[in-house]
């Protein structure tokens, strides 16, 4: 009870716990815990045989946080920026530090634009995006979708219906726009 000096007693003593739970207390001594203390200066044993790593060649201009002094010596080269989303991303990196909400909001907006651009682009390839196979929704049937969702009390059940909306929204929007466009043209012809 917090209203009196002593800690509430535990149901099981340390000896009982040690007898029941394999390994109980083997790391009781903080000296045995690998991340205690948090900082331990030991640059000799990391495997690095350099003071500063050799630099990876920068084959295309690499966007970077303005909080960095220079481009880091090693970096990922997956998916360089391209299209409108690329312009937005470059702008976000060039203009705002990580401390600014604008930096992250622009990057998030660029992600949505990237999805739309890439989906559209895929329509003219031999492998257009397929919302059915890509969402893995077939596993609903092979892996007890309904039973898993209805069993017990799950707090997330209320928002499950939002997931298909999030996925379908861009497709429905695009479909709607195409439909409206086609109707307009056919009406125009008839009219």
């Amino acid at each position, binding site marked *: 009870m917090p209203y009196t000096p002593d800690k509430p007693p535990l149901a099981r003593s340390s000896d009982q716990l040690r007898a029941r739970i394999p390994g109980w207390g083997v790391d009781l001594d903080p000296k045995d*815990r690998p991340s205690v203390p948090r900082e331990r200066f030991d640059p000799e044993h*990391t495997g690095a045989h350099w003071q500063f790593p050799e630099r990876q060649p920068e084959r295309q201009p690499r966007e970077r946080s303005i909080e960095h002094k220079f481009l880091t010596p*090693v970096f990922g080269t997956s*998916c360089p920026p391209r299209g409108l989303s690329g312009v937005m991303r470059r702008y976000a990196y060039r203009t705002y530090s990580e401390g600014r*909400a604008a930096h992250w909001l622009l990057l998030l907006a660029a992600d949505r634009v990237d999805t739309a651009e890439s989906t559209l682009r895929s329509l003219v390839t031999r492998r257009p995006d397929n919302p059915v196979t890509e969402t893995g929704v077939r596993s609903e049937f092979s892996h007890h979708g309904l039973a*898993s969702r209805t069993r017990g009390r*799950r707090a997330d059940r209320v*928002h499950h219906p939002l997931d298909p909306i999030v996925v379908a929204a861009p497709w429905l929007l695009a479909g709607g726009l195409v439909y409206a466009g086609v109707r307009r043209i056919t009406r125009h012809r008839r009219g």
Partner: protein
Amino acid sequence: MRAMVYRGPYRIRVQEKDRPSIEHPNDAIVRVTRAAICGSDLHLYHGMMPDTRVGTTFGHEFIGVVDEVGPSVRNLRPDDRVMVPFNIFCGSCFYCARGLYSNCHNVNPNATAVGGIYGYSHTCGGYDGGQAEYVRVPFADVGPSIIPEWMADDDAVMLTDALATGYFGAQLGDIVEGDVVVVFGAGPVGLYAAKSAWLMGAGRVIVIDHLDYRLEKAASFAHAETYNFAEYDDIVVHLKKITDHLGADVAIDAVGAEADGNLLQHVTAAKLKLQGGSPVALNWAIDSVRKGGTISVMGAYGPMFSAVKFGDAMNKGLTLRTNQCPVKRQWPRLFEHIRNGYLKPSDIITHRIPLEHIAEAYHIFSAKLDGCIKPLIVPNTA
């Protein structure tokens, strides 16, 4: 090669991609033999992490066989079986020199707040990940370790993130003998954290989730006392009641950005992306721990602001301990614990899915179908 590729929120596919090449003299190329999907991957999959680009390959939990090494690599040779920590780190910067491998300053040009992580968006460096047949592994002399002969592959892959993170999470709790520890989240990280809390001498370990099948695992695998928060009007009050109104000494957040339990928080964060994460579990941790207690945050949150109850944390004099796990630092001690039989990491693996069906694996793990706790991904070339 075959690789999983992100196509937009909730959409991924497997496609042909160029095999990665040596881009830096200390790179290695590793042929992946086993990968896993992490709760963190779900934040990417749901489109919550800024600068997640279409075409990126995810995957930061993987093991494999060295296929090729760059000219300056000394410690690895082709055909070595290696386990690769999820952190990409240089071994020589200010942070690496102090053992803070997850905070390396030389590997992520896109952000200074976070280090480098395989397959974890451009915000974490723009590297492709290991849910593929091959992966580029930078700083091959620093990151990977050769898998000991006696270790099973399934245990090794759990050591590359989830187990190390759970164990690290318990350490950040600064547990002393007899402490009451409450773990929010019975996913892989929470299960391992609960189990590790005993190793550090906890007197009572409580696990909170809303998925009964995971709570059952917490009871059997981690010897924990469990409560389903969906069955209580207010889980904070319940936690007070069962601790004689003192509260727990230590709380561990093993939930992160997509926490449930408050619809407004969940929807604004996970669906509308208006905040960095839904801090429901973190707020519960703040309110249910005792004054002067410690909160260890293993759950991941986006770089934007989140609606955290900071006033209560301040008034209660709490200590907040956080970080991405510096994985490799945990290994020697964890190897001992596994050898001694105190930990059996592979016990929580529930699914084994070929790379070609990874879209289904993500859906199952994300929607928590079929009793899924930890899905492994196995490429054809494994």
